[in-house]
């Protein structure tokens, strides 16, 4: 009986187009933020300020949407604003060499406060711009993927393109080689003539810009409104996602869709959601959504454990110099 019930619930969930649309939206959002964090961490800078950066991006994007009426202009403005905001972390932890954990946490607290303060008047205002779904003609009419994947908005395609570009730059260009070297061993990179501080600042800035895009996508698409608690922990999930995805753009994408799915299904267990009007198409199992919302973190811990018992002598997947400030050795 119970198994039949769960199977029935699964069927209801998997045939629920709304669930898939939500999954993609949260997946895109998490992917953008996590991709930025991958770039920063690959350069050896842990930035725990993602939550705060997303808040600033969400608020700025919402405001710019009202001002410009264009979601794209708003997203670019948010990205630039957060890239600049992220320089607080860059200057404090990279240039001045302060502890990255403390500085990153401070950035989160500062960002949440700043966004709440500057966005006070925005709470009551309606959205000025929204990302619209892109129709791909006949592709969008394919049952299943048509109304979901092939109907997603432009930012979804931008996120996928940024993922590919990030992979290519990191692994197939001199700039990426230098960036990864700075994150693995700053002293080695320095000795080879790579400017460590500048590389790290650029990485932090790009990470901030990506978090800004993620924040703007939240208020210009996912929940087109603004309030001070709108980010609600998504930034922390993005940080966990970087570990879950082992600092690789491809794996992070899979993780983003998985975590996005968890976020999408969470409320559906609680509300006895029905597909259509037929009473048979209802979810019967009730799970507290708080339990579901813990799952991304629980999965990340599982992955951490699995990573730690990898084959012998193998170096960790994490960039080796992460969290370490660099000062040129001069006695």
């Amino acid at each position, binding site marked *: 009986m119970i198994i039949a019930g769960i199977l029935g619930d699964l069927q209801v969930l998997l045939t629920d187009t709304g669930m898939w649309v939500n999954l993609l939206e949260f997946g895109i959002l998490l992917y953008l933020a996590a991709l930025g964090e991958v770039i920063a961490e690959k350069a050896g800078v842990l930035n725990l300020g993602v939550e705060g950066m997303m808040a600033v991006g969400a608020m700025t994007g919402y405001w710019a949407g009202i001002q410009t009426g264009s979601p794209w202009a708003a997203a670019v403005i948010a990205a630039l604003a957060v890239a600049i905001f992220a320089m607080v972390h860059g200057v404090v932890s990279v240039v001045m060499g302060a502890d990255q954990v403390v500085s990153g946490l401070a950035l989160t607290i500062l960002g949440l406060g700043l966004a709440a303060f500057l966005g006070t008047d925005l709470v009551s205002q309606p959205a000025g711009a929204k990302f619209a779904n892109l129709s791909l003609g006949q592709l969008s009419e394919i049952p299943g993927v048509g109304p979901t994947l092939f109907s997603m908005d432009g930012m979804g395609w931008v996120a996928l393109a940024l993922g590919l570009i990030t992979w290519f730059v990191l692994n197939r260009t001199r700039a990426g080689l230098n960036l990864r*070297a700075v994150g693995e061993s700053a002293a*080695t990179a320095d000795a080879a003539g790579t400017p460590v501080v500048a590389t790290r600042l650029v990485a932090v800035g790009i990470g901030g810009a990506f978090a800004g895009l993620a924040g703007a996508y939240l208020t210009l698409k996912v929940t087109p409104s603004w309030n001070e608690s709108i980010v609600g922990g998504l930034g922390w999930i993005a940080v966990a996602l970087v570990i879950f995805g082992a600092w690789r753009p491809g794996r992070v994408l899979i993780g983003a869709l998985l975590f996005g799915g968890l976020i999408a299904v969470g409320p559906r267990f609680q509300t006895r959601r029905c597909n259509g009007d037929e009473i048979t198409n209802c979810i019967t199992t009730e799970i507290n959504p708080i339990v579901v919302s813990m799952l991304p973190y629980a999965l990340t811990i599982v992955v951490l454990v699995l990573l730690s018992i990898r084959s012998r002598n193998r170096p960790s997947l994490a960039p*080796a110099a992460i969290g370490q400030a660099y000062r040129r050795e001069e006695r």
Partner: protein
Amino acid sequence: MTAVELDGIWKRFPGVIANAGASLTVAPGSVHAVLGENGAGKTTLMNVLAGVYRPDEGTVRLDGVEQSFSKPADAIAAGVGMVYQEFRLIPTFTVTENVALGSAPAVLSKSSMEKQVGELAERFGLHTEPGREVWQLSMGERQRVEILKALWRNAQVLILDEPTAVLTPNEAAELGRITATMAAEGRSIIFISHKLDEVKTFCDEATVLRGGKTVASSLSVDDLDAGRMAELMVGEATAVSQRRVRTTVVGERVLDVDNIIVHDIHGRAVVNDVSLVVGRGEIVGIAGVAGNGQRPLADAIAGLRQASTGTVSVTHTDITGMDARTRNSHGLAYVPEDRIGVGLAPRMNAIDNAIMRNYRTLGDGPLIDFGQAESRAASLIERYNIKVGRVDQPLAGLSGGNLQRLLVGRELDDEPVVLIAAQPTRGLDVQGVKAIQDILVEQASDGVGILLISEDLEELFALSDRLLVMHEGAVVGEFDPDTATRQEVGAAMAGAHASEGSAH
């Protein structure tokens, strides 16, 4: 014509003058040894040449042209490459990525770059696999990657800082062939070393530094012998590494290690079924290339690490299940490989470090009698001639020799029956080495059984009564230092079977 000319180099650091007018002249197409004790200023001088330090005074000339390096990249661009003792490689990068870092094309083509690196390696006889990640390579292979890095940048001057320290004898011989190939192409190699035999084998000329000054420049190595070299380096004629004449008779067994197996966290046996005994008054040496199980073996005997199977006994008492402190109280003392961190706490003062082992006997209950503690520390400092500024200052500023005498003295304070000494003289200068070796011999003469783990074959041959060789966690050979040759022991260290080793 000179390839390298360092003239009147001064470099001062707070409280220390590292170079006081040092000079060095290297001819093109030669392998040039730079000799000197630790603290003689060799590394500082090389760092000036490599652009890491700017000299306070003096000139650097390459091919007669004066240079002013403000960063290592400047020196690299001018054709100077340096291979540091601690390799500057990125373990998760491939050989090719490490070699190309800093001078890679804007868009990387994996296959063509790997091909180029492979061709360069072949030209100089550097065996390597361009596509492998560096963490998978042996120390010798990693060193070849470092040399490749320099060649990739077309270094005309290559500085090797104690390059043979991490190599097996066979790998060292191969390095000699590589440097000869490079010299034959007209490049200059600067070879920093302590070891006379390799200087004589690999190098053409030698420059000796002492106290930051050049005391002999461009000597032909044919004119060097052990006595002359020691005289130049230390400033007085001291015999180096002569076989110690031992008068004590080896007595009953004091340390019994039976079939010890130690696993690492991945389940691999890093110590694989090792059995050994040490008798009263005996020094048993353990030779081996770093990382072949010496450290986990020492830690397992001392109780810092759990053995999976096997037993350890001190004077016939089974101490296998005991913790480190209980083992100490049964007469086991341990001078660990990491004298700072494991052996001593550098941010604590001399008194705290001196009583760290037996503070429980000082004072009542939870209280420590610091008057007693201070006199305990003072007696150690006097007996072992330890130079400390003040006993209540952190140890951090002390030299290696003083730190090691404090550590060894503390471990011997309770008159142990067995002493495990791991790399006790590594990194010390000639006088520091002699002081520690004298203490070990004196203790053996007093009846202490000593297990001496060392990577210095000279030291092992000089001090040991018996010599064991470890390879990949197992004892693969036992030698009598009076009759065995360096080649036999070296072959066993490299993994050849003992029978093959003796056939050479």
